[in-house]
């Protein structure tokens, strides 16, 4: 412990990390997420069966000794499919949201910071994009481009960044008039530096809050895209698809819905607690208590 609190200068990031580490719930969530990622990445090691191996005679059976979480309509082991599905869903959730964040935050920050006519043009473009017929766009993407996860991210990214851009723009517009921004301008900092070093870190609060909500939404959107054929190619699957198939057999085979649903919910809660932990850790005002 530093003998006097003021002795060693602690940068915001070190201070934030110390506060984040002390937030037990956030740490537990981080551990859980890390475990989930490891399980998903090393799926082949843990999976008792291959995700495509069918047992038509068995069909949809409940949890049993051989199949811990039961089997789906084609008699494939659900536990294995959740592991492999986790790979896709986590990747889609994290990467597509990252794409949406990248575009949305930058776009919103530039628009909010620039103000005036540029802001108007950029925001009206966003309004236009809201109305864009997403389904036909997906169909065209599928036809003209080789089907790949990258394509899936672009499709999702193109939809998810819009609302975020609006929220960030709103925040930046009110932030723009604060003294510390004018001070940065007086120092002669280039606009790009001001936006990325001063404006965006101050907008992280709502952005993180929104991001942790986007991830599950993106996973479920992936289910709709996979159903259309753009996302995951059978026999591979994803949590979104598993939940969608489970929902259709909700009464007859409830385990097909419950287990993938629990996987998604657990990930969602962890993401949110981590998000909250990050937000509180990074919030300078919260430093004093």
């Amino acid at each position: 412990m530093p003998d006097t609190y003021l002795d060693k200068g602690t940068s915001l990031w070190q201070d934030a990390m110390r506060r984040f580490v002390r937030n037990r719930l956030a740490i537990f969530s981080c551990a859980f997420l890390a475990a989930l990622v490891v399980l998903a990445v090393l799926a082949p090691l843990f999976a008792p069966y291959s995700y495509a191996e069918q047992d038509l005679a068995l069909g949809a059976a409940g949890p049993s000794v051989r199949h811990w979480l039961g089997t789906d309509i084609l008699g494939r082991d659900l536990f294995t499919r959740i592991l492999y599905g986790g790979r896709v869903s986590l990747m889609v959730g994290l990467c597509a949201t990252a794409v949406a964040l990248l575009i949305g935050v930058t776009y919103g920050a530039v628009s909010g910071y620039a103000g005036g006519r540029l802001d108007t043009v950029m925001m009206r473009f966003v309004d236009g994009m809201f109305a864009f017929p997403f389904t036909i766009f997906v169909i065209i993407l599928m036809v003209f481009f080789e089907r790949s996860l990258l394509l899936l991210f672009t499709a999702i990214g193109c939809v998810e960044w819009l609302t975020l851009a609006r929220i960030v723009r709103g925040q930046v517009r009110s932030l723009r008039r604060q003294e510390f921004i004018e001070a940065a301008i007086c120092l002669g900092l280039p606009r790009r530096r001001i936006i990325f070093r001063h404006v965006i870190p101050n907008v992280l609060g709502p952005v993180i809050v929104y991001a942790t909500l986007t991830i599950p939404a993106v996973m479920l959107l992936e289910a709709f895209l996979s159903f259309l054929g753009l996302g995951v190619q059978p026999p591979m699957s994803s949590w979104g698809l598993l939940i969608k198939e489970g929902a259709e057999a909700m009464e007859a085979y409830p385990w097909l819905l419950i287990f993938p649903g629990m996987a998604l919910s657990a990930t969602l809660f962890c993401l949110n607690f981590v998000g909250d932990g990050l937000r509180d850790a990074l919030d300078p005002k919260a430093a004093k208590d």
Partner: protein
Amino acid sequence: MKRNASRTLVLACLALCFFSNCPNRQSPVQRGIRDQILHVGNFSEPEDLDPHIVTGNVEFNIVMALVEGLVGQDPKDLSPVPGAAERWEISPDTMTYTFFLRPSGRWSNGDALTAHDFIYSFKRILTARLASEYAYMLYCMKNAEAYHRGEIADFSLVGVSAPDRFTLRISLARPTAYFLSLLQHVSWYPVHPPTIEKFKAFDTRGTRWTQPPNFVGNGPFVLKRWNVNTVVVVEKNPFYWDASSVRLNAIHFYPIESNQTEERAFRSGQIHLTYGVPLTKLDWYRTNRPELLHITPYLATYFYYVNVTRAPLNDRRVRAALAMTIDREALVKNVLKADQAPAYCYTPPNTAGYTCTSAVAYDLEKARALLSEAGYPEGKGFPAVELLYNTSETHHTIAQAVQEMWNKNLNISVSLVNQEWKVYLATTHALDYDIARGGWIADYVDPNTFLNMWVTGGGNNRTGYANPVYDSLIARADNCPGRQRRLGFFQQAEAILLNDLPIIPVFFYTNQSLIHPAVKGWYPTLLNQHPYKNLYLESDG
């Protein structure tokens, strides 16, 4: 703070109770039984109700209640029964049919139904500008095809005439054994000339003559109400010649696209009859409520197109290997679970008395032998092949099962390609696929509707298959009046088809629907058509 949140919760509960009327209110189904109003799930919103324009079953179901052709359908087996025509005579050479209309025949606005109405209707559907997609159903009539293609301009040359107001004579281009069941098809239905003229709908689409107040038909019911995506209501037509025997007062058609939603509506007493049954609910109904579940054979085959122009599928032995390694029994029993029959041939059994004698075998050894013979021992070196299907839960599930079967039995990896409906159609029409999901529902009860598809250059022959011997057999069957000789030609043709295997039959559809016990007069039929005039509601509770 807490006080405020709990207060909103209490309010929400109160609102919930207020909105819901007491649980034991009378459901539409119970009220329907009392008032003889039938509530039916009818899959999707009808595109139109013009008999000469509609193309889907959804539209046929409603048009059949509103319009009646020359020949009606027997409720039990759809055999031809007197309709708008009281009786008919067939010439010895089966080339000329004479129909005697009912003098008492009326349109729903009271006008008399005459032979000229029929001639007007045939002329309308054969008018090129109307661009009716089912005009080809009338090509068996003399010069009909020539008139429709514009090669002749004078309609009087077409083989239909009216010796007097209530007699209609039709002369055919070729002896068509199934002509009477052909007449049951919507494309032969009459339309009310004054209404068509009033709305200038003779050769233009998108007119409003099929909207409720304007629609005039000669069927057992008349169109009362049509709310988009909500309901189509038809009521008993007092002017119908057989109105006395029609017991239903009205029918409500609900466009419910999701069979899950439809099943829930059925269970909560909103409809008497469903259009289909969700795959996952079949077991439940079969064990708990067998009396509600009706699974009936359906004149339709589920098969895979094979692009015979593309290597390695241009090799007959490869196609045979693929066809012989699909475990159709397991697929039907464990995946589809709706008593579908495994299809080892293409035309469904006893279609108008015809049952194909040759068949595709399920023989793993022979298949592997054929595959290695074709140059791919144990599947080694077998190029990447794609199995294409259009987006749907059922196709998705079947494709994965078949993919796994080929992988396990032939050690070849087939990738699945899922395409949206219109893209799928464009791809298959352009022959830009390896293997593609296919399905064909009979237009009329006769093997011809199935077998004439695969003639060289046939409109629906999307496999690139061309076999002159096959073509000649189909042509001779079509021109031969004798029933037995005709079926003989079909046997030979199908034998060739199952040997060349441009298509791999998988299973014969069945039709599944949930029916309320109070629905009477409903009989399983091959085309899943149930004449409404014979239906009635009677609770046996």
